[in-house]
């Protein structure tokens, strides 16, 4: 194993990082699997099962998707039965059992069971229905040396009133979280890096939830409509000393979001705050050009504190592929997973190199990607606390403990919201967790760790 590993990387620039990347990856991997308790064993088995059966995967995810729209357990069971109509049972007792349970006689019982299962699944990814419900978990994480960012889930914004309501919720969340965080114990690693202090409260916002006017061919419409909402949130974040992180979504809103945030940050009133972040999606072919733009604007702005940049692989890969295929466009995303992984590492290097103009945050559950980013940062001379590793609640729980245990600053993305609004998020996460290209799925399926840690 070691031989192939070394052979494959000899002579490539940057190969000297590889031994350390491997060591760190192994260390994190061991630590993560040891913390993998029996708590999620049933869930893990189910995910492994559906990952191997496309039709079953589709049927169960459709069930999760429709669950909140069903008025009663019988209705949910009817949907389950309908989703299983086309699924090849192939002797799988699970499907046969579910099918039998979908018979009218057993509808109510099956529906109750399914509803409970969906709720339980949602509970794994969503930390609470409301901010007050979520606060104890956030506090617990903090106490255990894990920072968080809160994401308020919601229905799609199709009216101005819905945009306003989302802005109001964000505003309220900033205030409430700041209030709650005041009593949290001191955690030096989470509260400062060598560029300065880091806010305890961190809220991720979605611009497409602030405005119903997202039109791909007219980014200025959504930009102008969302401007006053985002301005208000920036001011509030500044006032309460919170960090505001603007999420990226699909390509259809990228230009809008980027222009809006970069424009607002140029305002003199924000020269000293709040702390703000953007997201870069490594699965986009032109993500490095976007990084050029971000770095250029960050360098040219009068802001005295660094812009945080969270690099992710990207969560809308299927959407981008399908949309492009239906319109005949070249997909804006890399079509091979390995290209995304490589791009992620190139961006990691550039973000590290740009510190402290920007604060790098690496969001991935891929041990290789995480270990690479941390190793590169160390060898580039950054202090451990100058980078941040981010994971998703529910998907990265074990990794979270491993990262924090290894002395890195881990920040966990914590969705807050009710079942109805949480489903779109939940389905995206489940798809991600069970896709063939997923690191977690490969890991769960028992792939060799050293193989997974190889340079992409």
């Amino acid at each position, binding site marked *: 194993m070691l031989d192939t590993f070394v052979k494959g990387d000899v002579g490539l620039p940057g190969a000297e990082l590889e031994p350390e990347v491997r060591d760190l990856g192994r260390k994190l991997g061991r630590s993560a699997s040891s913390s993998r308790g029996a708590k999620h064993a049933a869930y893990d088995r189910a995910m492994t099962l559906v990952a191997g059966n496309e039709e079953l995967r589709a049927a169960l995810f459709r069930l999760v998707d429709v669950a909140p729209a069903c008025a009663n357990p019988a*209705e949910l069971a009817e*949907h389950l039965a309908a989703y299983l109509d086309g699924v090849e049972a192939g002797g799988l007792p699970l499907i046969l059992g579910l099918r039998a349970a979908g018979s009218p006689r057993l509808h109510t019982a099956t529906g109750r069971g399914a509803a409970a299962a969906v709720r339980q699944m949602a509970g794994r990814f969503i930390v609470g229905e409301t901010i007050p419900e979520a606060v104890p978990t956030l506090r617990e994480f903090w106490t255990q040396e894990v920072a968080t960012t809160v994401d308020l889930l919601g*229905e799609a914004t*199709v009216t101005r*009133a*819905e945009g306003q309501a989302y802005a109001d919720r964000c505003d309220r969340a900033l205030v409430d979280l700041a209030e709650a965080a005041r009593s949290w114990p001191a955690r030096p690693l989470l509260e400062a890096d060598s560029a300065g202090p880091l806010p305890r409260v961190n809220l991720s916002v979605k611009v497409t939830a602030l405005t119903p006017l997202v039109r*791909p*061919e007219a980014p200025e419409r959504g930009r102008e409509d969302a401007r006053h909402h985002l301005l208000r949130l920036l001011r509030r974040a500044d006032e309460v000393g919170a960090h505001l992180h603007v999420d990226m979504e699909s390509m259809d809103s990228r230009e809008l979001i980027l222009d809006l945030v970069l424009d607002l940050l140029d305002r003199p009133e924000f020269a000293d705050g709040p702390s703000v972040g953007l997201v870069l999606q490594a699965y986009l072919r032109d993500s490095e050009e976007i990084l050029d733009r971000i770095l250029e604007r960050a360098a040219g702005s009068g802001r005295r504190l660094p812009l945080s940049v969270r690099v992710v692989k990207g969560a809308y890969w299927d959407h981008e592929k399908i949309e492009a295929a239906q319109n005949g466009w070249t997909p804006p995303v890399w079509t091979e997973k390995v290209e995304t992984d490589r791009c992620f590492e190139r961006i990691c290097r550039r973000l590290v190199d740009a510190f402290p103009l920007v604060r790098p945050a690496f969001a991935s559950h891929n041990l290789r990607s995480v270990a690479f980013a941390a190793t590169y940062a160390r060898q580039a001379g950054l202090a451990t606390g100058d980078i941040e590793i981010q994971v998703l609640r529910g998907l990265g729980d074990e990794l979270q403990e491993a990262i924090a245990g290894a002395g890195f600053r881990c920040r966990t993305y914590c969705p807050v919201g009710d079942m109805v609004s949480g489903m779109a998020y939940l389905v995206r996460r489940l798809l991600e967790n069970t896709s063939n290209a997923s690191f977690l799925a490969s890991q769960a399926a028992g792939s060799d760790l050293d193989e997974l840690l190889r340079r992409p």
Partner: protein
Amino acid sequence: MTEFRNEILLELRRSHERDRLVAALAELDAAPPVAVPVIVGGETRLDPTLASVDPGDPDRIVAAATVAEEHEVSSAVTAAAAAARGWGETSAVERAAVLSRAAGELRDRRYELAALAVRECAKPWAEADADICEAIDFLEYYAIEAVRLDAGRELIQLPGERNSISYRPRGVVAVIAPWNFPFAIATGMTAAGLATGNAVCLKPAEQSPGCALAVVEALRRAGIPEGAIALLPGEGEVGAALAAEPGVHTIAFTGSGAVGLEILRAAALPGPGQDHLKRVVAEMGGKNCIIVDADADLDDVVPAVLHSAFGFAGQKCSAASRVLAHERIAAHLQDRLRGALDTLLVGQAADFGVDVPPLIEPSAQARVERMVAEAAAAGANVERVEDVPDRGYFSAPTILADVDPDSPVIREEIFGPVVTVETVSDVGAGCDLVERQAHALTGGLFSRNPRTIAAVSRRTPVGNLYVNRGITGAMVGRQPFGGNRLSGTGAKAGGPDYLLHFVEPVVVTENTVRHGLAP
């Protein structure tokens, strides 16, 4: 044979594409109006008297057309009949090559032509671009399909006989085209006729002669013989005269129900000296319903309804006209739809992101306003966007509720930015309402239950049912398009059966037995 692929839409979310379109529009605006001649037998006569104006700025003349005279209509058909003989004898492969070249001509001018549709028909950019892509698609698709058809089809063969079926051109096709897809529909009907070896006389809508000229130019440059394509601009009389010509074999029409029925009636009996039956391919509009089940995801429903009902100001035969919502979600859906109404941008087609451009002409504006006013007077609950531009033929996007089921807004095609929302007890009741309609063009269903989807698919009378998406935007080769009942003759444009309407099938059966010897 090459495989058909849809022409690639411009990726308008990229600013460089938008910049190119803006530049093309500036160039168009700087040029004088398009002068549209009558083209008959390769001869052109230019005496432009009929103006087509920008619906958003009626002082701007976009094109000026020469009106075809009666004798020109006759000579066009005579010339076409003569040219059809040679063109029909050209091999299907050669004809396909010419059509494919014509597609290339349109492709080369796509930015300029999109700008023309923006000005002449007030089509917003994305729709204008899609219109040109569809025109290109029709040319390429029918070219390929005609070659396939030319190979004939399999028949049952027994010992001692040889059976074959082949498809021949019929002769002269009269194309009477609408303005709402000024490139796509005119090109599609024309391409179907030409691909199968017929000659075509095209009578474009009086509102969009400029776009039609570009289509004819593309065909002529590509090598369609003189005479095999005629351009006969004018108003309704020109179309009526053309359809009445005894030398016309097939009439391909897309437009209003009243005109379509008149064409069908007039075509039924042979005229003097006419030794064939006229065949009519007619597409005549719809009254399209979207059924929303209780389990639908309203996050998807609202944008789909808005786009289907109000995109291009509802001026598509596929546009959504009635929303039939399950009683459990009806109130919530209606709230969200009404709340979303003011997110629609009403404005000039040339502004990116405009959802609702002006209507095509003052009479359309007056008709829509009258229907809304009557519904309001009869007690309907009216939700409208308050301010719309004064200049141009704008009509405010409107949602009507609590409407009398016998009212014209429920029964008649509106062809404007108006949608009604009705509550139904369940999906079955929604299907009952759809079934009671005379029109059956498009329909929509939002449901997350596969069994419901299957049941509605079995029951629906409509020609095109769209499930869990908007109900407009049929793509050539993917969603063959056309309606049933009073919506049309059931021909599916952009589908594998469409060309059969333009050909005469001939079956040859040869007895191959000679003295008991059968090869």
